[in-house]
């Protein structure tokens, strides 16, 4: 995934940033960090649905080549609605497959 734009969607904590960095290393990509605009360069970006609205996320993912959803605990979400929105967003991506995606369970890695 070196020449791709990859987005990691997780919870609004430092763990998402850490996992984005870990995934970029694993897939030989460049770590880009938290970003909520349209990406210009290849690399691994991340955000959570506390950083952008679902509608913004719907638009933004069109500009990526691959998505990683981080499987995280409900407790990590201070705002439970962000958790629910993230789960439903995953459901949308899973059912409609607007871009390729993986669910990454870091507890197993």
């Amino acid at each position, binding site marked *: 995934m070196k020449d791709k734009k990859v987005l990691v969607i997780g919870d609004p904590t430092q763990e998402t940033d850490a996992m984005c960095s870990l995934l970029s290393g694993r897939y030989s990509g460049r770590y880009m960090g938290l970003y909520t605009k349209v990406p210009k360069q290849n690399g691994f970006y991340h955000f959570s649905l506390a950083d952008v609205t679902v509608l913004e996320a*719907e638009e933004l993912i069109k500009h990526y080549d691959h998505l990683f959803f981080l499987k995280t605990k409900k407790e990590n979400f201070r705002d439970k*609605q962000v958790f629910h929105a993230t789960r439903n967003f995953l459901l949308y991506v899973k059912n409609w497959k607007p871009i390729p995606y993986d669910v990454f369970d870091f507890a197993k890695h």
Partner: protein
Amino acid sequence: MSSTSQNIEYQLRVLDTKSTSFCGAKWYNATIFLGAGKTMSCHHNPWHDVAYTDVEKNYKALHNTDIKKQQRQQMLDGIRPQGCSYCWDLEDVGSISDRVYKSQLHSERDLDLAFKSDSNQDFDLQVLELHFDKVCQMACSYCHAGYSTTWAQDIKENGPYEDVETDKRLHYKHERRTEQLFKPDQENPFVEAFYKWWDKDLHKTLKELRILGGEPLLSPHIWKFIEWFKSKDTQCSLEIVSNLGPKVDIDKFLTVMSDKQAVIMTSMETSGHHAEYIRDGVDYELWCSNVEKCLESDVVKHVTILFTVNALSLFNMTELLEQVEVWKSQYGKERVNISINILRYPVFQNVTVLPKQQRSELANNLETWCRTHKSTLTDYEYEQLERLVNYCRIVDEPNNITEVRKDFKSFFAQYDQRRNKDINLTFPELKTWLNQI
């Protein structure tokens, strides 16, 4: 005692003794979007996500979400939940709000139960508005891609509407594909949860079940749903909110319902070319003919015409009211009625966008019409129209009125181009004002 006095008495005695922000709808009323996995307490509220994982464990979570439970607690504490500002705005200008009307749908005993309950408790619904999906053949100016596949198609083909700065909810920017989580032929846990809840409790507790869309009579779910509803033993009243527009097979609906009755609710807020301009896709004559088919059928208990009053609907509104009057005299006063809702969003289509003088003149015309035709209206209808007259006169322009008016002009210029319409031809009374913006 007049109906208004009765409502004030009810508000003071039943609601405000609990708390001045208490509303029964937060416990017993819901709008649920099964295709989007979202809910809200009533149609004036913003929606929020329902967790499908919660719903798989407890079907009542379709309505009893964390957010609603927080808002119930706010109401018990006398705090006004922010999402309910439609009612607070009306109450602040001295009008009776929907908090009163919606609470009156529930018994005082049930309201007491809600008030004395733990806010974490799950409640069974009594009034439910249910959306299966957003399939719709029309694309009304104030609607958006979250409710209409035709609107989504407009955005997909022509891109987002530009230079509409006050469109904070992004009505006109997105296809809103995330508001249809499932493909039509897919299993949907929210639909499953609804059917489970119905079988266990809702068939006993629901008084009103209202099916909305999109256009529900074009939904892939509808015919299966009607067969299923017919097979159940329930006292629940079924209401279908249909636009009665092109492609809607009203004859099939009336035949399929056979021995069961339903209420038809249909949106229209003005007449003729004005209606066809605002409600892109509608054929006004066909709509009238479909309303008449419903009124001629024993299947339809009554037809309610839902007025979503917006800036462009005020000019010919009395013509539609006169058409309703004709139907009332032809089919019976109780067989057709009206419900007035004031459009708030998008803010540039709210009536306050119009010049205050014009707004005031339109309010005067409407008031004169109401007084002349009072005997043909029910108390509730008259009260709602009176409320609209007051709203048009009293409500202040938003602080950013210049920006709002620019958006009105900018939006309708793009709408005209995409939909092959002409606002200046349809509303010549606005031409001078539009040129000055």
